[in-house]
């Protein structure tokens, strides 16, 4: 059977949708399968922060490119996702945080992010809403945010315009290997495709199992909160040294409070429950940074699922041993960097030499250590000068 499609993509988040868009525009006959609706998981419920100051050092060059893509989304995506480019501040309230901030900003600067450490009065000039308790701040002009819930609408329009066969509400239940490619199994039919991209976010682990491969993906349950509309109380993206705060006020007046505080859930049930202590902790941190936020009322809180590999670096490249199959996802701050990394993968599929290297997953598939995938949370190796990323590109 001759494949009906040049390319099949499973998973319609920002990664899958971007690969689909660029490949379809380059002339590949493309079909995208999404279990639910486009960009309604991580890619639609995230905080939309487009920041360098929370991005992993190894991803800074990618995030810078991706930031430029988001800022010009109207040109390549063709539709608005409410991107606002503004200054970003990462705050330190204690000596320890100041040290951490200075160290991390230095590393990120080396990687290309234009971050400088500024004094409280300078920070106050950038962000008049700031708390007086700030000791110092990392300042970056390349920052901003998008309106994540508009991502699905924007990509949906773009994909349809690019001629992608968009199959929403179509879960894929398995993949078979055919003579000339793959069979993508859905409840209705098995769709033959020549090449395949798995872009299933936290469900990548399940998808890789279709090939008998074990790729451990840790599931982070990130809590987010949004206030009612209030008067303008801030004009920058605000975070803290440790990275566990992300805060900005949208043009319509609501303030989104996030930073990766954890809730309850798993990849079977989704983000089912929010932990009140963690919501309160997150909101206290926010009000500590921007005191006027206390005037606001909490309108809604939710949790979304973020994928993380063992070394917290992306899974983006060919699937070892399976020609014409690719994986794309598990990108830290993946909303920011997703479009660029997905575009690199599209280049690869289109047999153009990607400008920046991909993140092949061979490193993650070793069976023994794959079993105990954990992330070092209790120590700060970077302060001790240790390199916690065993991976080299």
């Amino acid at each position: 059977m001759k494949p009906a499609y040049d390319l099949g993509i499973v998973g319609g988040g920002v990664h899958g949708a971007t690969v689909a868009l660029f490949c379809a525009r380059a002339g590949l006959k493309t079909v995208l399968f999404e279990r639910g609706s486009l960009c309604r998981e991580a890619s639609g419920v995230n905080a939309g922060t487009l920041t360098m100051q929370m991005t992993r050092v190894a991803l800074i060059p990618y995030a810078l490119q991706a930031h430029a893509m988001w800022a010009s989304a109207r040109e390549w995506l063709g539709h608005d996702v409410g991107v606002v480019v503004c200054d970003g501040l990462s705050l330190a309230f204690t000596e320890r945080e100041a040290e951490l901030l200075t160290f991390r900003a230095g590393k990120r600067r080396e990687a290309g992010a234009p971050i400088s450490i500024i004094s409280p009065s300078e920070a106050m000039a950038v962000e008049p809403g700031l708390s007086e308790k700030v000791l110092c701040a990392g300042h970056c002009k390349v920052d901003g945010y998008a309106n994540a819930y508009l991502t699905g609408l924007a990509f949906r329009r773009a994909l349809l315009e690019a001629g992608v066969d968009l199959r929403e509400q179509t879960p894929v239940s398995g993949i078979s290997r055919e003579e000339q490619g793959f069979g993508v199994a859905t409840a209705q039919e098995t769709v033959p495709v020549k090449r395949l991209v798995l872009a299933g976010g936290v469900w990548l682990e399940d998808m890789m199992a279709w090939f008998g491969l074990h790729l451990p993906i840790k599931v982070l349950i990130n809590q987010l909160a949004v206030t009612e509309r209030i008067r303008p109380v801030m004009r920058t993206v605000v975070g803290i040294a440790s990275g566990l705060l992300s805060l900005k006020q949208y043009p319509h007046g609501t303030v989104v409070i996030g930073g990766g505080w954890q809730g309850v859930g798993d990849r079977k049930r989704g983000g089912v429950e929010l932990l009140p202590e963690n919501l309160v902790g997150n909101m206290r941190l926010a009000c500590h940074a921007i005191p006027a936020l206390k005037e606001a009322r909490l309108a809604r809180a939710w949790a979304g699922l973020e994928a993380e590999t063992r070394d917290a670096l992306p899974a983006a490249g060919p699937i070892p041993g399976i020609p014409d199959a690719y994986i794309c996802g598990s990108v830290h701050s993946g909303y920011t960097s997703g479009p660029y990394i997905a575009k690199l993968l599209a280049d690869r599929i289109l047999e153009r030499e990607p400008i920046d290297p991909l993140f092949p997953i061979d490193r993650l598939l070793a069976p023994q250590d794959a079993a105990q995938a954990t992330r070092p949370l209790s120590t700060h190796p970077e302060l001790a000068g240790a390199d916690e990323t065993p991976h080299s590109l």
Partner: protein
Amino acid sequence: MALPLVLPFDLVVIGAGPAGGAAALAASEAGLRVVLIDESAAPGGQVYRAMPAGLSHSDGALGPDERAGQALREAIAASSVTWKGGARVWSISGRYRIDTASTAGCESFEAPRLVAATGAHERIVPFPGWTLPGVIGLAGATILMKSQGMVPGRRTLVAGCGPLLAAVAAKIIAGGGEVAAIVDLSSRADWLKALPGLASRPALLKQGINWFLAIGMARVPVLFRHTIVRAEGENAVASVTASPVDGNGRLSGGPERTFEVDSLAVGHGLVPGAEIPRLLRSKLAFSAASGGWIPVRDTFGRCSVEGLYAAGDGAEIAGALPAAITGRLAGLAAARDSGALDSARFEILSEVTLAAFRKTLAFSGAARDLMRPRPAMIEDIAPDTVVCRCEDIRRSEIEAAIAAGASEVNQLKHFSRCGMGPCQGRMCGDTVAGLVALHAGSREAAGYWTGRPPLRPVPLSMLLGEFDYSDIPVPEPAPL
């Protein structure tokens, strides 16, 4: 300031109307340690709402609702139920931890069982001008009059459907206000059809007849089978126009009538406030007759999620007496499931209660039929009429989002911001789902908004209290 301690109980009851009150009393009589939480200062819910401190009824003005409310408040005060008034539940987690916020601070409660008895909210199918100042809900008007002794305006038009129409009109007259007209979706024949059901509870029927007598005495024009087509005014409602409709609520092209008024009380029935079952991912079913999406439950109110019970109008629109009965059943079931009641005792107690329940069915069926949603009203909402008033979203914008691919209500919310405002979708949810259903094929396909905390918007200042930076348990830094 450290986070509050979690206080242990056998049962948490949320909502202190007739359902929650009865559930708490039944469970505590059976020996459970019960905490009863409500955002109002005193028990009573909407139907038996107490007047705020400092206000009281004049002598002899106590109607049956006021007397029932007083009895409920006295019973709760005399019981072992722990009463937490003025407390907003903002979070429910685990099985079950309930977090509340109030001006006095935050408190947390824990119990293996939870009764959700959070009542109903009002359905107002949008029409041009419905967001003008001076337009209030029919149920809202009763609360205004009950709790504040205040009529909605000098000259009010009362519109919509169901027994509340007569109740509100009669109360306005008794309160010294003028009723410009009653605009009723139902026909005289609808009322006649409802009569035998309504007559099954003679006291209520008598009350209803008294209302109609008062309305008749005041020579209030009653426009049967009519609906409001627009409310107009510069800064507030100044006139309201009504037009005849058919049984589905579709305009039949008859002559319009305009009334000069300074207030409009309008309501098109009630929607179960099933936020807690929704939040806890309990199974729901759509039932137009019951008011909308309702929790799936057994005879005793047990939901699909272990330890959760739903009662009263929050589980299914039925009215005050059935609410008290389903509340009692849920309280008994919680006591039975905790082992506080043995099966024999449970059988006896619940049998009597169930028998009482069956006697209420004819009345609530008749009332529900009068209040039933008229589908054509949603179909006929004009393109430029605001549907989501918090976010100012018009029908045309909703249709555009549907045309752009929004296939169910959560996706529609993403596409349009509809339902993202401070009312958390309570006001527009039913209408929006109705609009999506026109394309999706059914209300089931249109779905319902995923439940999210907080149950009600809460001020951050109230939630966070006074704190130092060192009180914030900032997690370890993310990897570099």
